[in-house]
């Protein structure tokens, strides 16, 4: 069941071209949405303004070789392994959601555009499953409204939850449609309509939802690395190591009160999870 192409019956009914046109339209909707998002919210303008401010406060210059290596480490760290997440639950659920979405979309495009390779149906189902599980875990348990604010999972905010809800609905009904025979009659038709409605909502509401974060976050992570490397570090102080003799010479309070090799003090206010409801 996991390796049957769900689109075979559909392409017999409505034709492969209709599906391909739909996919292309969704791609265009995303691109247009991101461009309008950037222009209307002036996110790019503010981003580059901040970058210029950081450059003015820079203490060191960074070579283009360093910049390339920072871009590469952003790709392997923040992008591929979501290393920005400190909370391990959020990190794992984000990885499942992200890779599920990517694999699902790629498998959709591959099968709709005619690829006969047997791996695609399996990837389609696995991607949808990963998206449903990871996204569901986030939606029901991890998002801040539920875990820290004491809100109920069904108390939705329209703009805030548009992205995750349309992702979840899309993946769940895609799987239900496939497991109910991937046809166009009866229950299968209902599932298919909901699947397509959720997918269309997801890709056409880019301006109002969180969708564009997948393009902005890598840029922001790269920019943050640049500020740490060129010394501006958003005007934050250098802390250094407490057993470093240079630090102890500069700040004599440190060895006087803490000794020359202070231990790891552990966590104080960060010990508890911030549940503030």
């Amino acid at each position, binding site marked *: 069941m996991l390796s049957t192409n769900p689109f075979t019956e559909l392409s017999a009914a409505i034709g492969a071209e209709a599906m391909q046109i739909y996919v292309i339209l969704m791609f265009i909707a995303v691109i247009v949405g991101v461009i309008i998002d950037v222009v209307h919210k002036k996110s790019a303008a503010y981003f580059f303004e901040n970058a210029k401010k950081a450059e003015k406060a820079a203490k060191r210059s960074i070579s283009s070789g360093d910049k390339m290596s920072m871009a590469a480490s952003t790709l392997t760290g923040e992008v591929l392994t979501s290393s920005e997440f400190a909370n391990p639950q959020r990190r794992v659920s984000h990885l499942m959601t992200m890779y599920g979405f990517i694999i699902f979309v790629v498998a959709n495009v591959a099968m709709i555009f005619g690829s006969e390779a047997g791996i695609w149906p399996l990837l389609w189902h696995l991607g949808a499953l990963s998206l449903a599980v990871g996204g569901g875990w986030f939606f029901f348990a991890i998002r801040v409204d539920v875990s820290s604010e004491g809100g109920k999972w069904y108390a939705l905010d329209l703009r805030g939850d548009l992205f995750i809800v349309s992702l979840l609905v899309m993946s769940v009904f895609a799987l239900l449609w496939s497991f109910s025979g991937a046809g166009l009659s009866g229950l299968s038709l209902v599932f298919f309509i909901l699947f397509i409605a959720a997918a269309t909502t997801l890709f056409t509401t880019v301006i109002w939802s969180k969708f564009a974060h997948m393009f902005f976050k890598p840029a922001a992570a790269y920019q943050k690395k640049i500020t740490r490397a060129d010394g501006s570090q*958003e*005007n934050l102080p250098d802390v250094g190591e407490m057993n470093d003799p240079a630090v102890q010479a500069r700040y004599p309070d440190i060895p006087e009160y803490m000794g020359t090799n*202070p231990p790891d003090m*552990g966590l*104080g206010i960060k010990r508890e999870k911030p549940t503030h409801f």
Partner: protein
Amino acid sequence: MPTFVYMTRCDGCGHCVDICPSDIMHIDPTYRRAYNIEPNMCWECYSCVKACPHHAIDVRGYADFAPLGHSVRVIRDEEKGVIAWRIKSRNGETDLNLLAPITTKPWGKHIPQLADVTGPSQDQRNSQLLYNEPKYIRLDDGDIHTLESNGLELKEGVYY
């Protein structure tokens, strides 16, 4: 000027919400980032600035040390047990880096217990520092006065 959050650095963790003594840091329900709901009530105590793990909150420094157009940023590093400040003037010529310890022992482990410390000896009680200690804390004799030890009890409600 009250605290403000850099929404691009915030991840909605809620440490600032927990620590704000005025309860004015909340999480925006749409963007899921922290924000100051009542800037008028902000005392600029710097609690949220120090508590934020991503250093996403900023506030203007107090006017007695911070010139116009300055930048004041702080890092409270719990594991190292230090607090670090950086004060920059607007032309960048003054760039102070300050570092001070905030604990000498690991957090939560070496809390001194009053019961472990012996009370003052009779000589100490008669000394200049403690001779005047009032009777109600019973440094003269006996145990501490409490309501129970005097046979009283606290009644609920308000009495006029």
